[in-house]
């Protein structure tokens, strides 16, 4: 006879009785890990100051989430890795030499105002890190656009200020950019490696692509947003990128400079703020690519990724509505 005592201890719960091992925090920490190569390259090129900036950004983000949740007696969920990720992304999106109060303000705006006030993880409309950065860029325009020459020497604290490749491209054109970097091959190589001025975590294309490959391989992101985003941007850059003539722009320079890769793989793909239906994600990516290039080529900023993604974030709910999935069997009514 089966053990009677045991019987009273049987666990009764509803199906399904098995679950996948994937958890929200595992996803978030994996994304954090995937950004590591880019952060390491940023630290290598921009020195300890860059590391501190990222660290402060992360610490403020996690702390402000903790304090906010504690104060409102919400469940403390800082170990899910999402606040850490917001802090990390914000830090990576800052110039290497900002004063330390800048990441503090940015992280607070990102985590408390953009995310927690909307209800916390899953309920925010905008990508928190990008709102944090947009707030800083608009409030502290000078500080947020002082770019340092990469030194590739970890000890050197005071690097020269310089313009970013996109800044040069916008103000003085492709020929000047060539002049600065020597030739085309060297330009591409430096952009790939990350030996150029820019935000801490956006410069090394190779490092970002390694992280992106990891996320794609693990299925944490899909190709839909990055491919449509980058594809659209590349096509527009090729067609309208050169002044005065069509189909003469350099799409590779555009893809590898500014925050294009960081934005396309790590920020536009943010689950909460992008559409969840794959077809809609393609439209979302196209929108991001289009707006990025519109701002880069016609707008007042050399860079457009941040505003492009934020604007497209507004459309995510609408896109999900428009691209509602089709029920199985509904397509071919009465098929036989």
């Amino acid at each position: 006879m089966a053990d009677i005592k045991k019987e009273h201890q049987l666990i009764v719960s509803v199906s399904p009785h098995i679950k996948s091992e994937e958890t929200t925090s595992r996803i978030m920490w994996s994304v954090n890990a995937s950004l590591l190569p880019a952060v390491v390259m940023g630290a290598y090129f921009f020195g300890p100051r860059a590391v501190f900036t990222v660290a402060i950004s992360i610490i403020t983000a996690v702390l402000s989430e903790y304090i906010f949740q504690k104060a409102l007696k919400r469940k403390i969920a800082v170990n899910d890795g999402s606040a850490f990720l917001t802090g990390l992304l914000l830090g990576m999106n800052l110039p290497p030499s900002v004063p330390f109060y800048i990441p503090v303000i940015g992280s607070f705006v990102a985590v408390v105002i953009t995310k927690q006030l909307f209800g916390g993880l899953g309920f925010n409309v905008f990508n928190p890190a990008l709102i944090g950065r947009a707030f800083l860029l608009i409030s502290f325009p000078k500080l947020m656009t002082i770019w340092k020459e990469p030194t590739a020497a970890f000890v050197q604290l005071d690097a020269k200020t310089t313009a970013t490749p996109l800044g040069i491209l916008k103000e003085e054109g492709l020929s000047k950019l060539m002049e600065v970097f020597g030739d085309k091959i060297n330009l591409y190589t430096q952009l790939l490696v990350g030996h150029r001025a820019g935000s801490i975590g956006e410069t090394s294309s190779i490092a970002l692509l390694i992280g992106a490959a990891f996320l794609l391989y693990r299925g944490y992101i899909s190709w839909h947003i990055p491919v449509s985003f980058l594809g659209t941007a590349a096509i527009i850059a090729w067609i309208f990128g050169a002044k005065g003539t069509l189909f003469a722009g350099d799409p590779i320079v555009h893809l590898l400079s500014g925050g294009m890769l960081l934005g396309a793989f790590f920020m536009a793909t943010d689950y909460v703020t992008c559409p969840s239906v794959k077809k809609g994600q393609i439209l979302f990516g196209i929108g991001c690519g289009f707006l990025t290039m519109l701002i880069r080529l016609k707008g007042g900023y050399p860079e457009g990724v941040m505003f492009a993604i934020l604007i497209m974030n507004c459309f995510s709910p609408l896109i999900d509505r428009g691209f509602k999935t089709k029920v199985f069997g509904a397509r071919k009514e009465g098929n036989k």
Partner: protein
Amino acid sequence: MATATFKGGIHPPDKKELSKDKNILPTKPPKRVVIPLVQHIGAPCKLAVSVGQEVKKGDVVGTPEGFVSAPVHSSVSGKVIAIGDFPLATGRMVTSVVIENNNREEWTSLKDNPDYIKLSPDELKAKVRDAGIVGMGGAAFPAHVKLSPPKEKPVDVVILNGAECEPYLTADYRLMIERTQEVVEGLKILMKILGVNKGFIGIENNKPDAIEIMKNAVSGEPNIQVCELEVKYPQGAEKMLIKATIGREVPPRGLPMDVGVVVHNIGTAVAIYEAARYGKPLIERVVTVTGEGIKEPKNLMVKIGTLVSDLIEECGGFKSDAAKVISGGPMMGFAMYSLEVPVTKGTSGILVLPEEDIVHTDGFGPCIRCGRCIDICPMGLMPSMLSVLSEKGFYEETKDYNLFDCFECGSCTYVCPSKRPIVQLIRLAKSLVKP
């Protein structure tokens, strides 16, 4: 050859290795059986015996009331010792007949008719109905109802469901291996009743030997084809199976017969063969008793009404860390609070999970809109939206997201990284709004 499938679905570990090599063995004769009068979807049966009455194996103890109903028979010879309400694995209380087994195995009259295939479709259908055969994959829909399609819905294909996509279960697999010819005969009877000349047997390709054996068995049957299916849950869901095997899509809220198809389970086919040839009623079935929490996983031929506690004992009892006992598979089965529950016609497996495999669902996170559930929903729904709307109390709005097309396979809940009880929230919404 590329294996057939449908869009979406999940890949849980199949765990079939625990029991797949275990031959189907008869259980020890149970001391008593508890035979519920409701073992099918549809109207309950009317009691046909009284306390104290002697019955033989195959005697009717409950007669069907209504078209969507199926008679129930005694699975032992013996004496009716009690009639009363007993729980099913789902927890539902139903009137049941308790019969004490006299171990004499006396049958009510059975006749071997080797020429059964010459019977008319109506005669064969009557045999299926009288034998009380229901779908043995779990849903327990009376078989003869599926065999009576209305005139305006002509059926041209019969598909046998050998997918057995629920992890752990191996009952249908063993039947295909051990009783191959009976499976084929069952399919031929189904084709004869429905007057169709296209039969398919869909089998997931994690059962390569079953595929090979079945292929050999039908090599001389030009009208029957074995279809290799991708290993994927819920490949055995009727609509998914039809899509994978012959590419037809059953319309939303439609039935397989809307696209000219009737689907039956492997076990059902064997039961139909036995009913057609011998007039044998459905009084026993194969049950896989398995899981990491049971000492000796087995495939057993079990008399309907045998208590789960008897089966656990038959399999050497629990391991010390056994924590949850499930009737059916891990995806759609029911956790039981008591082991004094009878095996019914729809019981495909008893799964014992140890403590370490138990997923504790208390405390789930917010939806992070990752879209995993949308990507895998075999019905093309947006489970995330359904769950969020239901959670917030917007039950009516769930209908905009095709609430009633969900057949509760649980794939969404399996993949959700926030461990949200998505399918439970969908069930809640279903119970609160009208279609």
